[in-house]
C-alpha cells in the first residue's frame, strides 16, 4: 500500500486542481500543496536515489531539513537543481525530475554502488583512491562524479531577474509559528516597526499542522485571525517564503525571499528571488525545533518518515502516509500523531516507545509497546515490515508507513553565526543557543523543546513586550486564552544507538553516512567532531546536517564515552539553507555588473568614430579609424604624425580633478608633493610628484594656482579616487590644523588636450584672451572666456606629447559643443581627434612616465626626478624615507630609453633586459621594458625601461629577452626622450 489523499481536510483548495509532472509522469495536486505532499497524495513515495549507494529514498520531512527529496525543477535556463520537494509549492505545470539516477529512478544501475559499499565507507576519499595519482583525473574523479552527486546546474542563461534590498526594523521576528505570531501581535500593537519572516508560503508555522485549539478557535483559525490583524498594521511587514539564512555584524540578518518560485512563468518585471539585508534593533529567534530521526536499520526506506512530518501531511495537506502505520518514538510527540491518525480513521498498528516508563496522556486505540525499539525496517523501494525488539525478542510487523521521533533539537543555527558556540544541556538533551547574545533573543521551542503551544504563545508575547518596551514603546504582552490539546514533547533521555540493528542504519541521509562509518571514524582516530565530519562527510552538502548532526554527535559521544557537550558541534556558518547564486548576485550582472562611467565627451567621441576601450569604469576613445585604414596601427600612426605636424584633440576628461581651497592650501600642497609648491605664482601650473611615506612615488600630475587660496590639481585617471582619499586623510587626520578644503571636480569638467604646432591658432578662434607665447607661456594657467563669452573655461599650457599643447577644461555639458567648435576651428589646420593609443605613443616618444613606470617600487631619482625631491622643505609625505640607503644606491633601476638595433625588429612591454652576451637567466636580469610602442616619428619600436644604473648606460648594447615567447631583440639603451630633447617645441 502507499500514501494517498484523504477525502477531506487540510489547508488545500480542492476546487483548484493543479497538474504537474514528475519524471515526465503527469499527476494532479491542489493549490496549497507542496510538491512533496502532492507526490505523496499520488502514492509516489520513491522520489530519489541516495548520494553514494543510490538507495531508493522517500520523503522524510515536511520542511527545510529534507535530505532526500531533492529534485530538479523547471526547464532550460530556469532549471533549479537540488530543490527540496518539501519546500517547493505546487503550481500548474510544474515539472519536477528526480536526481542521481540512471537510467531511471525505478531501475538504477548506480545502486550496484551498494555492493561496493565496503569501499565507499568512511574515509573513502582518503583511502581508496590514494594512488596512482594519474588515476585521479582519469578514473576516480569521473567515476565519483558520475556515481555520486546531486542535481546538475543548467548551462543556459537564467532568464529571470534577482535583486537585493535593505530593510530596517525595531524588532525582527524569525519564524511565524506560535512564538513569532504572539510576538508580532504584541510588538505590532505597540507601534514598533516589526518584520516577521517565515520560510513557508503562509504564516503559522507548526500551527498549520496542529489540531490543538487556542482560545476556542482551531489552530488554523487562530492563524488566520492573527494574519488579518497583522496585515492591518502598517508598522508590520510580513515576509513569507523568506528564509532568514544568516546573522551578521551590526545585527544585520540575511534573508532570501522566493518571490516568484511558486509560479510557472514569473512576471518579468519583478525578481524571482530577493535577497534581504534586514537591519534590526532587536531580533527574536522563533525558529522552533527540529525532530530527530532514529538510527535503526533501513531507516531510509521510502515509507519511513518523521512523526511531525506525518502530522503535517495529515493535517495541513490531507494526505495519509499509508494504511498500516507504526510509530517509533522516544518521547510524547509520537502519541499526538497517533491521535491525529485515529481521527482520520487510521489506527496505528503499534506505538513502539523506547521508554519503559513514560506516561503520556494518550486515550487512543493503538497498541503500545513500551521499552522497545524498532531495530530494522524492511523493504526495497517501499517499506513492507519492521522488526520490533523488546526484551531481547524480536517481532516482525507488516507496515506500510513508519513514523519516528527521536526527540527535538532547537533550531539555533542563526544564533551561532557570530562566534557563539551551542551549549549542551543534559536537562533538554539538546544543544541550546549560546547565552546573552547582543541583539538576538531566543524564544519558544527554539529555547526549550519542552515549550508547547501555550508556552510558546506566552513566551513570544512576553519577550516581545520587554524588547519593544525597552525601546520606548508602550507595550503589554498579548494574551490568547486557553490551549486545548497542547502536546508538549518533554525532553527525554536520547536514544543514540538503537540496539539489535542488522541493516544499514543511516545517520546522514544526504551523504549516505551510516552508524558504522562513525564508529570507524572513531576507531581510526577521527573521533573529533570536526575530523569526523570531514572523514565521513556527515553533515556536509546542501542540508548541512540539519537532521544528522545531533545523531552523529550522540553516537560519537557514546563511542568515546563522553557527553555530547564534550564532543561539541562543528561550526555553524551561514547559510542556514542554500542560497542561489542568482540571489547573491542580485541585479549586478550583465550590463549592470558594474557601473559605466562616461566622459562628457563620450557622445562626441562616438559620433567622431572612436573605438572605445574600457579602462576601469571609464570608456575611453582608443583611436579614430578612417576609411581605408585596415589596422589600428595605421590609425594610431596617422594620429601621432598629424599631431607632430598639425594638431590633434584628445579627450582627457578622465583625469582626476581636485579643487583645493583654504588659507593654507599652498602649505598643504607643499606637504603632499615632494617638490615645492608654496611659491607657485597665481596663473601658473606645475608638475608635481606625490610620494608615499616609504618614499616611493604614489602619483603625479599638474597643479595650477587659480588664486591665492584656490588650487586646481589633476591626477592620473587610475589614481583619481585614491589621491582624493589620500588628500582627505592628510587634511583631516594628519594636519587638521591647516585650513584646507577639498572637492573633487572630475565630473564638472570636460577636458581636452589640444596638441600640435597648430594648437594655438586653432584655440585662438574660440578663446577670447591673448594666448600668444608671450601672454600665455608654457605652464600658464587661467580662466578664459570662450566663443564670445558664451562660456568660461580653464586653459592650461601643459604638454604630455612634447608639442605645443594646451588643455582646455569646460563645464561638462558643453564639452561636446566646444569639441565641435575646436574641430571646426582646426579644420583648416588639419586637426584630427586622437585616442589613448596615440596619447601613449606620444608620451613614450617624449619619455613621459605613467603608472607603467610609477609602479610602486620607484623613487623620484629612479625616473630622473631627483631634483623634484626638495631638500629645503621641513617636511612632506615621504621625506623621511626617500633618502634611505637602498633608495639612493647607484645600481637602482633607472629610467632609460630602448631602441632596437635593427629598426625592423621590435620588442614587447614586460620583456627583460640582458647585458650583451649574458645568458638568458633571471640572475642576469638587468631590468625590464615598462612601456613600448611603434614610434612613427622614430620609425621603429621604442621603449622605456627601468634598468640597473640605467642613466649611466646610454649607448650600451643589450639584449631584450621575452622569456614567455622566447623572443630576443638586440637593442641599445638611450636617452628616454626620443623627441625634442631640448624642449624647444614646448616654448614656441
Amino acid at each position, binding site marked *: 500500500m502507499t500514501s494517498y489523499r484523504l477525502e477531506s481536510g487540510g489547508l488545500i483548495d480542492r476546487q483548484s486542481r493543479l497538474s504537474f509532472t514528475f519524471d515526465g509522469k503527469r499527476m494532479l495536486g491542489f493549490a496549497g500543496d507542496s510538491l512533496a505532499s502532492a507526490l505523496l497524495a499520488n502514492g509516489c513515495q520513491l522520489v530519489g536515489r541516495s548520494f553514494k549507494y543510490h538507495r531508493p529514498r522517500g520523503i522524510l520531512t515536511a520542511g527545510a531539513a529534507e535530505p532526500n527529496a531533492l529534485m530538479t525543477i523547471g526547464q532550460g535556463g530556469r532549471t533549479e537543481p537540488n530543490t527540496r520537494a518539501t519546500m517547493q509549492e505546487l503550481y500548474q505545470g510544474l515539472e519536477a525530475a528526480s536526481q542521481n539516477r540512471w537510467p531511471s529512478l525505478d531501475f538504477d544501475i548506480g545502486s550496484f554502488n551498494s555492493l561496493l559499499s565496503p569501499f565507499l565507507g568512511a574515509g573513502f576519499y582518503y583511502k581508496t583512491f590514494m594512488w596512482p595519482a594519474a588515476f585521479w583525473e582519469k578514473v576516480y574523479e569521473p567515476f565519483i562524479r558520475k556515481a555520486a552527486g546531486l542535481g546538475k546546474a543548467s548551462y543556459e542563461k537564467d532568464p529571470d531577474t534577482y535583486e537585493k534590498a535593505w530593510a530596517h526594523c525595531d524588532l525582527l521576528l524569525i519564524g511565524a509559528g506560535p512564538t513569532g505570531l504572539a510576538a508580532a501581535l504584541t510588538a505590532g500593537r505597540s507601534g514598533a516597526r516589526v518584520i516577521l519572516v517565515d520560510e513557508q508560503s503562509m504564516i503559522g508555522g507548526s500551527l498549520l499542522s496542529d489540531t490543538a485549539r487556542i482560545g476556542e478557535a482551531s489552530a488554523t483559525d487562530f492563524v488566520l485571525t492573527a494574519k488579518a490583524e497583522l496585515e492591518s498594521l502598517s508598522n508590520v511587514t510580513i515576509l513569507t517564503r523568506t528564509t532568514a539564512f544568516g546573522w551578521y555584524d551590526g545585527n544585520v540578518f540575511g534573508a532570501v525571499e522566493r518571490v516568484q518560485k511558486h509560479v510557472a512563468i514569473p512576471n518579468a518585471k519583478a525578481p524571482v528571488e530577493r535577497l534581504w539585508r534586514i537591519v534590526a534593533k532587536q531580533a527574536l529567534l522563533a525558529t522552533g525545533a527540529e525532530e530527530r530521526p532514529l538510527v535503526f536499520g533501513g531507516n531510509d526506506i521510502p515509507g519511513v518518515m518523521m512523526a511531525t512530518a506525518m502530522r503535517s501531511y495529515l493535517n495541513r495537506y490531507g494526505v495519509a502516509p499509508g494504511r498500516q502505520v507504526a510509530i517509533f518514538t522516544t518521547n510524547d510527540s509520537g502519541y499526538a500523531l497517533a491521535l491525529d491518525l485515529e481521527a482520520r480513521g487510521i489506527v496505528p498498528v503499534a506505538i513502539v516507545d523506547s521508554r519503559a516508563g513514560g506516561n503520556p496522556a494518550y486515550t487512543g486505540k493503538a497498541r503500545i509497546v513500551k521499552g522497545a525499539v524498532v531495530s530494522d525496517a524492511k523493504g526495497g523501494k517501499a517499506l513492507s515490515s519492521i522488526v520490533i525488539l523488546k526484551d531481547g525478542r524480536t517481532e516482525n510487523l507488516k507496515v506500510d508507513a513508519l513514523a519516528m521521533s527521536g526527540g527535538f533539537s532547537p533550531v539555533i543555527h542563526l544564533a551561532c553565526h557570530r562566534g557563539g558556540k551551542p551549549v549542551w544541556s543534559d536537562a533538554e538533551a539538546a544543544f541550546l543557543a549560546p547565552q546573552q547574545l547582543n541583539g538576538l533573543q531566543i524564544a519558544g521551542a527554539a529555547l526549550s523543546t519542552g515549550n508547547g503551544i501555550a508556552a510558546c504563545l506566552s513566551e513570544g508575547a512576553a519577550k516581545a513586550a520587554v524588547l519593544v518596551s525597552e525601546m520606548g514603546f508602550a507595550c503589554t504582552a498579548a494574551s490568547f486564552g486557553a490551549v486545548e490539546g497542547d502536546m508538549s514533547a518533554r525532553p527525554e533521555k536520547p536514544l543514540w544507538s538503537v540496539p539489535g540493528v542488522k541493516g544499514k542504519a543511516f545517520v546522514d541521509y544526504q551523504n549516505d553516512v551510516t552508524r558504522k562509518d562513525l564508529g570507524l571514524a572513531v576507531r581510526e582516530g577521527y573521533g573529533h567532531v570536526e575530523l569526523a565530519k570531514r572523514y565521513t562527510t556527515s553533515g556536509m552538502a546542501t542540508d548541512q546536517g540539519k537532521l544528522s548532526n545531533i545523531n552523529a554527535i550522540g553516537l560519537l559521544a557514546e563511542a568515546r564515552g563522553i557527553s555530547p557537550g564534550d564532543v561539541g558541534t562543528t561550526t555553524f556558518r551561514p547559510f542556514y539553507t542554500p542560497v542561489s547564486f542568482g540571489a547573491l548576485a542580485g541585479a549586478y550582472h550583465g550590463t549592470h555588473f558594474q557601473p559605466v562611467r562616461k566622459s562628457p565627451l563620450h557622445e562626441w567621441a562616438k559620433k567622431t568614430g572612436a573605438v572605445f576601450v574600457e579602462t576601469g569604469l571609464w570608456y575611453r576613445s582608443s583611436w579614430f579609424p578612417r576609411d581605408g585604414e585596415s589596422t589600428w596601427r595605421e590609425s594610431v600612426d596617422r594620429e601621432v604624425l598629424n599631431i607632430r605636424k598639425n594638431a590633434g584633440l584628445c579627450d582627457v576628461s578622465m583625469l582626476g580633478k581636485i579643487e583645493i581651497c583654504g588659507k593654507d592650501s599652498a602649505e598643504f600642497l607643499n606637504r603632499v608633493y615632494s617638490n615645492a609648491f608654496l611659491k607657485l605664482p597665481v596663473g601658473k601650473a606645475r608638475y608635481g610628484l606625490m610620494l608615499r611615506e616609504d618614499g616611493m612615488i604614489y602619483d603625479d600630475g599638474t597643479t595650477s594656482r587659480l588664486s591665492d587660496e584656490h588650487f586646481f590639481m589633476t591626477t592620473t585617471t587610475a589614481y583619481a579616487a585614491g589621491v582624493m582619499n589620500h588628500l582627505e586623510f592628510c587634511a583631516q587626520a594628519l594636519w*587638521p590644523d591647516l585650513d584646507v578644503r577639498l572637492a573633487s571636480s572630475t565630473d564638472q569638467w570636460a577636458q581636452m588636450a589640444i596638441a600640435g604646432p597648430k594648437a594655438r591658432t586653432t584655440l585662438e578662434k574660440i578663446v577670447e584672451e591673448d594666448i600668444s607665447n608671450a601672454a600665455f607661456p608654457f605652464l600658464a594657467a587661467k580662466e578664459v572666456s570662450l566663443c564670445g563669452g558664451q562660456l568660461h573655461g580653464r586653459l592650461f599650457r601643459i604638454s604630455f606629447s612634447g608639442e605645443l599643447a594646451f588643455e582646455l577644461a569646460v563645464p561638462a555639458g558643453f564639452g561636446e559643443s566646444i569639441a565641435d567648435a575646436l574641430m571646426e576651428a582646426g579644420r583648416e589646420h588639419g586637426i584630427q581627434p586622437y585616442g589613448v593609443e596615440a596619447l601613449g605613443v606620444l608620451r613614450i616618444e617624449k619619455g613621459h612616465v605613467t603608472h607603467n613606470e610609477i609602479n610602486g617600487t620607484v623613487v623620484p631619482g629612479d625616473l630622473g626626478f631627483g631634483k623634484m625631491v626638495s631638500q629645503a622643505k621641513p617636511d612632506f609625505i615621504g621625506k*623621511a624615507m626617500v633618502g634611505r640607503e637602498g633608495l639612493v644606491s647607484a645600481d637602482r633601476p633607472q629610467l632609460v630609453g630602448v631602441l632596437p638595433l635593427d629598426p625592423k625588429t621590435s620588442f614587447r612591454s614586460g620583456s627583460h633586459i640582458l647585458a650583451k652576451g649574458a645568458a638568458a637567466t633571471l640572475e642576469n636580469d638587468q631590468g625590464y621594458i615598462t612601456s613600448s610602442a611603434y614610434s612613427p616619428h622614430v620609425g621603429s619600436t621604442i621603449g622605456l625601461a627601468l634598468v640597473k644604473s640605467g642613466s649611466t648606460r646610454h649607448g650600451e648594447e643589450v639584449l631584450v629577452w621575452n622569456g614567455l615567447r622566447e623572443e630576443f631583440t638586440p637593442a641599445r639603451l638611450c636617452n628616454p626622450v626620443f623627441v625634442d630633447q631640448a624642449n624647444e617645441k614646448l616654448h614656441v
Partner: protein
Amino acid sequence: MASLIPCPHCGKRPKEEFTVKGAVLDRPAADATPNAWMDYVYLRDNPRGRYDEYWHHTSGCRRWLVITRDTATHEIEASRDAALARE
C-alpha cells in the same frame, strides 16, 4: 554578506561605503629617528581584541574616522571623526 560601520555623521552604514586604512598611529616628526619612521611605516601590532583603525567614509560624508574595533568579534566600541577627535 553584511556589516555595518557606525559613522558619527551619517549613522550606521554598510562597510562597502568605507575604505579602511589601518592602525591609527601618530605621524613622527620629519626629523624623528629612522627607527621611529620604520615603526610608523612598516610595523604593526596584530592584537586580538580592541584596535583603533582609520576608516574613510568614502561613499558617504568623506570624513576620516577613528574606529575602535574588536578584531576578534568585530564589535565596534567607538567611532569618531579623526580631525574632530583630536580637539
